[in-house]
Each structure stands twice: as structure tokens, then as C-alpha cells.
């Protein structure tokens, strides 16, 4: 479902991505883990066709980002922590507006909104103007907007950032629920516990380099770490990590 081939991205002298190659499969939640500035958002924006890679290519949901960017955009739903909503429109109006952009009829849109209302517990949020939303309410509608067309590939980039415990739980439950054959969720975060809870496999990105890809047990085994956080540090700053034994003592 996701095939990334040797993608690089440079901003003048700065190299944000250095030849990233990875594959993610149907039916999995794929974690993208890395500190701020690792290149996660750049990679995800390339996958969403918002940015052009300097070199390399990717196929997302069966569509090549260079040759069929519109096909890619129809196949993905994207949520990032910085996305907002038009303050003077209600959640329902936003969702209907986006449904139309994806070619849905009013009846299809309303049926899908009702479905998302159940799954994301939108409730009265739908008919309140977005300017009055709390952070959690806003993020739920942003997620609903991203999946209004029921995309096979869902890209979540720091989507839980700033959410309270209840909204975060709703989001993680939603990610769990989207795991199904024919679907892929790419979950990017720097919060290890979220990755441990929802991701089947994880890729660790640091300074534009892909350091490791595998299931969480694989990553732990390869690094000899007891937790994902320690494995992460062992990969990104091996010289700064004390041995597990000394830590235990």
C-alpha cells in the first residue's frame, strides 16, 4: 500500500531526507518515530503530494506521487497537529464541503457524517461553529474531515499533539478501529507510548536517515533494549546511552 523508494529532500544546503526507502502493507498501522526535525513531516507531506521530493519516488495506495498526484490525494486522508478549521463554519458544514470535493453526494456525505459521529463521538460539535471548539473537539472534526471520503491510507502526523486524555483516547481507539485489510494507517509521532500501543511496525527516522524498520519486538531485539524509548536512544545517540545493566544497577 505504501512503497517509498530512495526519497531525498533538500532545502538549499539542508538535507531533510537522505534516501529513505520503506514499505508498509495493507492492514497495518505503521509507526514513524523520530525527534523533531527528523524529517517525518517532510516525508509525510511528500506522500500527501504537498511537497515534491528532490529525488526518489513513492507509490501511495496504488498511485504514483509523480504521475498521479490527484489519485494519491483521493486515496489518502491527512491529519497533522497544526491543522485547523474555518472558525465561522460548523463541523457539519466543513465535512459536507470536503465531501463535495471528493465527489460525494449530499446523501453519501450525511451518511458518512453520521457514521463518523458514532465513531468519533462528535455529538453537538457538528452543529457548533469551529471557533467555539476546544482543542479536542477541533481535532476530532479535523480527523473526521480527513477520513470523510473513507480513504484506504490514513496519515496521522503528531495528531495527538495537544489533546487531553479523553480526546487522545478517542483518537487511539479510532486508529485501532481503522486496522483492517485494504487499509493502512501511517502514525507519526515522537511519543513512544502511542507507538507501542497502536503500531504493528515502526520506522525510526533521525536527521533524514532511516535507522531501523520492523515490529517493536524486532527493534528491541536488534538494539538489545528493554523498551522502545531506550531502543530509540540506542539508535539515534548510541554514544550517549548507558548500558542496560548499569542502568539496572
Amino acid at each position, binding site marked *: 500500500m505504501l512503497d517509498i523508494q530512495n526519497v531525498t529532500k533538500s532545502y538549499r544546503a539542508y538535507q531533510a531526507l537522505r534516501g529513505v526507502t520503506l514499505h508498509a502493507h495493507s492492514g497495518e498501522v505503521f509507526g514513524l518515530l523520530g525527534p523533531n526535525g527528523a524529517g517525518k513531516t517532510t516525508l509525510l507531506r511528500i506522500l500527501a503530494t504537498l511537497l515534491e521530493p528532490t529525488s526518489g519516488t513513492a507509490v501511495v495506495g496504488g498511485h504514483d506521487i509523480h504521475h498521479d498526484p490527484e489519485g494519491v490525494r*483521493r486515496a489518502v486522508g491527512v491529519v497533522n497537529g497544526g491543522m*485547523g*478549521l474555518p472558525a465561522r*463554519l460548523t463541523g457539519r458544514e466543513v465535512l459536507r464541503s*470536503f465531501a463535495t470535493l471528493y465527489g460525494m453526494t449530499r446523501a453519501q456525505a450525511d451518511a458518512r457524517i453520521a457514521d463518523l459521529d458514532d465513531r468519533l463521538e462528535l455529538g453537538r460539535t457538528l452543529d457548533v461553529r469551529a471557533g467555539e471548539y476546544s482543542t479536542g473537539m477541533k481535532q476530532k472534526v479535523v480527523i473526521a474531515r480527513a477520513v470523510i471520503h473513507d480513504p484506504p491510507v490514513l496519515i496521522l502526523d503528531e495528531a495527538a499533539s495537544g489533546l487531553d486524555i479523553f480526546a487522545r483516547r478517542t483518537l487511539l481507539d479510532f486508529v485501532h478501529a481503522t486496522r483492517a485489510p485494504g487499509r493502512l494507517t501511517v502514525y507519526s509521532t515522537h511519543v513512544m507510548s502511542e507507538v507501542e500501543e497502536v503500531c504493528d511496525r515502526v520506522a525510526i527516522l533521525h536527521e533524514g536517515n532511516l535507522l531501523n524498520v520492523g515490529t517493536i519486538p524486532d527493534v528491541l531485539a536488534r538494539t538489545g533494549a528493554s523498551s522502545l524509548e531506550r531502543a530509540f536512544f540506542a539508535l539515534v545517540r548510541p554514544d550517549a546511552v548507558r548500558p542496560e545493566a548499569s542502568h539496572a544497577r
Partner: protein
Amino acid sequence: MPAERAPRRGGLRPGMVWQIAARDLLTTLRDRRTLSATILMPLILIPLFTLGLPLLMGNLIGGQQQARQQLGVVGTLPEGLRRALTTDETLPDGTVTRAGVDLVPVTDPLKAVRDGTVEAAIQPGGPLPARAGDGTGTLKLYAKLSNLRARSGAFGKVQDVVDGYNRQLATARLSTLGLGADTLEPVRIQPVDASSAQEQRSGQLAFLIPMLMMQFILAGALATALDATAGEKERGTLESLLVAPVRRAEVVTGKLLATATTALTSAAFSVIGFLLSGLIMRAYQSANPGNVATFTQAMGGQLTLSAVGVLTLLGVAATTALLISSLLILVGIYARSFKEAQTYVAPINLLVVLPAVTLQFADFLNTSAALYATPLIGGMLAILDTVKGSSEPAHAALAIAGNLAGTALFSLLALRSFGREEVIFRN
């Protein structure tokens, strides 16, 4: 996933364009401040500027003629001059057209004027002639010459009265010599106004109309353009729009359509404002049929438009709205926030206001075809010509073409900006 559309690659899909525009228009419609600027302001400000201000000024200046001012006098004046100064000028029905002044004896005329005891003061430099053949004399006239009120009041009245007094004495003197008053003016100039009837009527309104229309087009476009570009970036809604299967050209065109619609709505309400002014003016004239000429003069003229004139105005206004909208979108998308965008558009305001103000001196301009083809400026000139009734179809067509060419250029630049990562993700 719903069934996919299969559009031609790269073309504009009207449905998508309309969806983008509708979303921006709905956002604008729910903003009270924008609605006020777009609808209420033209309806209130245009009648105020075109009716209220000239009437107020006319009343203030005209009121000076009807009021009796205090005129300081040092020494004595010939009886004829004293009488002429203090007597009211009236119409046969008794209406005072120019009131006389109250003479107040003063010893220091300069001080009396400066401290406001009197509005003006006169001081004969010696005995003044009381009859024809009495010789000549000097009359010092003190007033604050930088003060418009003083100049249009006592100062003006003294000048008029002394002119009349001089003419009266000179005519009497000529009469004793067996000569007529015509001797003083062997050649008379008789001006004949070659302006068309509409040019004669339009007066100062001609200059006001393009200026106000441009201002309201700008005001109408501003909020929508900045909210749809910099505002979207700031809120984080632009990225979600760009990740939908909508083409950048459709995004730019949709935003242009929404912005031009609000700009044109504002322009339409400015036209309604002018019509409202005209209705009020007509109602006043119907109620006061004797004062039509005076009222028209106080108003700075009156406007009559033919059907072709109305169409020309609409064409120029529509293309100007597109031009200004595309420029605002181009500037707005470059800004990181609404506030930053407001800073960027300040010079655009000047770009509209300064040429519009310069239209007062349009008679001195060499209005070449190139000037008419200049975006924005050509439109202003075309509106001015239309209002004056001297519009030429070729000039109007050039102005419209110039605006459309400018719109195309700015739209292409805006489209390029929407495709540039460093602009879209600039923060």
C-alpha cells in the same frame, strides 16, 4: 471510497472552483465586520459624502452670507459706504441673499481681529471719497486671510461692497462727463461653455465616483482575500484543502471568484449608495423647485447615465474587482498571518487612493491609449469619462482589457506561489 471523477488533467472543473469559492464566501458572509464594510459602509458613506458633505459645506459657506458679522471700524466712513456695508441685500420677496455687517468702533484694528472681537476691521488711510470727483483714498482691510470663514464672511463682504461703491462713484463721475458706464469696459468677454450637458452637470461628482467605487471594491475584496489566503495558512486550513483532490489552479480561481464577488458586491452597494443619493436629491428638488440650480451647484453637480454608460461602469467595475482581488490574493498568500498580510496590503491601498485623488486634475493629463490600457488607472479614467458623458468605447475597451491582462498576470503569479513549498509552508 466514493466513485472517483475522471477529469481532464490540468483543466479547471467549475464544480470544484465553485466549492472553493462557496466555502470562502460563506466564511465572509458570517463575518459582521466584513459585511459592514461591504454593504453598510457604501450605503451610509456614499450619501454622506455626496450629499451630506457638499450640503454641509454649502450651508456653512452660504450661512456666512446670511449671517451679520462684526466689522471693526477705525475713524469715520463716508455715509454712502457705511450704508452699503450695513444694509442687507434682499430678493423682492424679502429673502436675505447677503446680510450687511455690524460696524463696531475699534482703536486697534489688528488687535481686535487677532483677539476675535471682530471678524475683520477697516481703517481709512485718510479721507475717503464720498462723491464722484472727490479723489481717491486707501482703506486698510484687516482679517485673518488664512481663515476661510473670515475670508468668506466680513472680508468678502467688504470687498464686494467697496467694489460696488467704486463702480457707483466711477459711473457717476463718467455721467458728469457725458460718458456711459460702458466706457470702463470697452471689450467684454462672454464665456460660452462648450462642455456637453452631462459634463456641465457632473461637476465634482465626476471625481468622487471613481474614487469611491475603487475604495469600496478594495474594501470589499480585502477581508475575503486575506482570510482566504494568509488567514487559511494561519489557521492551518490551507494544508487540508491542498491535500484534497483539488488542483492548485482551482484553488486560486475559487478564491479569486469569492474575493471578486465580495468586491463586486461592495461596488454594487456603492452604486446603490449613489442611486440613494440621487433619489434623495430628486426628492429635495421636487420639494424645492426654485432651488434646483443652487442645490445642484452646492452638490457639485448631478449625474445622469445612459444605458451604455451603466454597462461601461459595470464592465470596468467587474474587471477592476478581478484585478484588485488577484493582486490581494497574490500578496495574501505570501504572508504568514492575517496581520502580516495587512501590513503588505497597506501600499495597495495607496496604489488605489493616490491615482483616484489625482483624478481631480485629470483635465491636465495627456490621456493616451497607453494610459487607458494601464491596469487600474485606465479603469479610473474610463469611469470618470463615463460619469462626465465623454466616454469613448475604444477607451473603455482598453481599460477593461488592461484590467483583464493585469488579472491574468497576477493570477498566474498567485498560482505559481500556491505551487511553491517555501510560500505555502512559510513560517
